[in-house]
């Protein structure tokens, strides 16, 4: 017998199919920028977002007549620098988006995996909770809570976090059901793995690419909901700069100064679009890697 040489250790190069997708890259760019802006807001903002100057109210942005170079995006109805408020508003939006997803993800994924894995009455209980949650009108409850407790960033995050877990639970439950009867789960049990180990290290990594997509959807939804609540005056309390609040405050001036409503509106649209594009891309990437 003559041995044939084995190819030497060569790790498969980390493929990035996302590079092929301009859309994913664009999404990543938008979300990345938003994260950086949110973290370094104090360094990036040209002015104090709370400083009012009633002499310089409703100055138009730099590409319009009558603009001032000190205020690139102009000022609002109280003379606050619009760019600074937009930058700090990113912080509020991202904070709400991330923390809401973390809270609702923890609740939803825990419930979903438990129900999907154990089945039986555990699953019945989880399904009952999901049904209950789905029959609660989200906006109305959020409004009621804010009206009762008063509005603050924490209240908005908690309310949304405690309400938005249903999709996590549904997706985690169905994907867990697909995974739980696979042979490697049985093999792990036969190798002496504990229940916790099986749920966290065998099941979770194999459903996480589905959950990432849900997370991006929920994050976009949370950001939009916060904007809606703030618009209704029941979200983030003024003078905190939130995009929804900026839109709400701008609506009285939109006929003569349309940019005050357009700028935060566009920011909101672009961020939500970016998150969704990134989510789609991540699904393709993780999905192909695990199921190839």
């Amino acid at each position, binding site marked *: 017998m003559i041995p044939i040489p084995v190819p030497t250790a060569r790790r498969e190069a980390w493929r990035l199919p996302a590079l092929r997708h301009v859309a994913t890259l664009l999404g990543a760019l938008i979300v990345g920028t938003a994260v950086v802006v949110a973290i370094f807001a104090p360094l990036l903002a040209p002015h104090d977002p709370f400083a009012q100057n009633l002499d310089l109210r409703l100055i138009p942005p730099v590409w319009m007549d009558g603009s001032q170079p000190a205020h690139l995006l102009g000022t609002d109805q109280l003379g606050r620098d619009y760019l600074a408020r937009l930058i700090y508003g990113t912080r509020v939006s991202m904070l709400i988006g991330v923390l809401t997803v973390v809270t609702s993800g923890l609740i939803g994924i825990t419930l979903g995996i438990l129900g999907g894995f154990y089945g039986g009455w555990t699953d019945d209980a989880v399904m009952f909770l999901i049904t209950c949650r789905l029959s609660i009108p989200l906006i109305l409850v959020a409004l009621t809570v804010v009206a009762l407790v008063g509005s603050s960033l924490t209240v908005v995050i908690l309310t949304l976090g405690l309400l938005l877990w249903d999709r996590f639970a549904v997706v985690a439950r169905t994907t867990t059901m697909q995974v739980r009867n696979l*042979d490697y789960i049985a093999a792990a049990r036969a190798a002496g793995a504990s229940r916790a180990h099986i749920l966290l290290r065998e099941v979770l990594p194999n459903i996480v690419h589905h959950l990432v997509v849900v997370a991006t959807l929920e994050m976009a939804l949370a950001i939009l909901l916060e904007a809606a609540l703030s618009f209704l005056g029941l979200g983030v309390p003024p003078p905190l700069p939130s995009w929804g609040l900026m839109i709400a405050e701008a609506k009285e001036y939109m006929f003569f100064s349309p940019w005050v409503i357009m700028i935060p509106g566009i920011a909101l649209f672009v961020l939500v679009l970016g998150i969704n594009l990134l989510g789609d891309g991540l699904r393709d990437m993780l999905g192909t890697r695990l199921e190839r």
Partner: protein
Amino acid sequence: MTAPVDEPVLSIANLRVAFGRRSEAVRGLSLTVARGETHCMVGESGCGKSVSALSVMNLLVRGATRSADHIRFQGQDLLGLSERDMARLRGDKIAMIFQEPMTSLNPAYTIGSQLAEVFERHRRSGRRRALDRAAGLLERVGITAPGMRLGQYPHQLSGGLRQRVMIAMALMCEPELLIADEPTTALDVTVQAQILRMLQKLQHELGLALLLITHDLGVVARMADRVSVMYAGQVVESGTVPEMFAAPAHPYTQGLLACIPVPGTARTGEPLGSIPGVVPRIPPGFIGCGFRDRCAFAMPECAEPVPLRDAGGDHAYLCRLQPGWQQAAA
């Protein structure tokens, strides 16, 4: 906990597994596996082979109930063991290999991490030591370039390689008992032969007690010391391999043997032996021979309790027919 020398590694007595009131998958199974011995369980699909194996591990699906006089492992009765103590034995002293190598490895982790984990869990070892042991074992199960394989994911390996990895994983903690549930059924013949030879070699080297489940009498002939032929949840015939192949005493065993074409002897056009029908589902409380609806020698008295007959030596079978009936029939 040192067992007496002549104590078998595994001893099952009168095991019964029922799925609710509708069916009883295992009906009074008894067998023993000694150290260094290979005990084969043969039979068609649905005979209760896998269920028996899983009930030793206490890994039956929900809704299945097991009962037995005892299931002793190294003198310790597994029936009374808590789930925690049982989990401590699984993968450590008792290891199991499954039929489907393609899906038995978790796609989310590298081979190395899955192998190392078993060792870390049971031996409280560090990652480095566990990976060293994993590399050593991969080499023993005949995998070249183990260092490279450790960093690969399951989808990068072929079926034969994955089954070798599964075997290496089962051996990580030097088990006393290895239960292999159709380990080569999903593989093609050449790979099958390699895996079996490797398994046999490892068994001799490590002194493993091997409980091998298969439906392939060819595998039995080359691997087994003892055989238990299962039908409808019962051992219908048991004995050493030479006894069994020389004089199959149960009509079912004869039928199984007749299903194998022997190259050179089987002629084209001559019908291959087959057993008509399928394995029935047996409800609890069933009396008589489970094979009577497919048996060419069935008589009305087959619906009465069936005696266990001694065919000499360790050879025994469960049938109304007297020893030596084969000659009389021929």
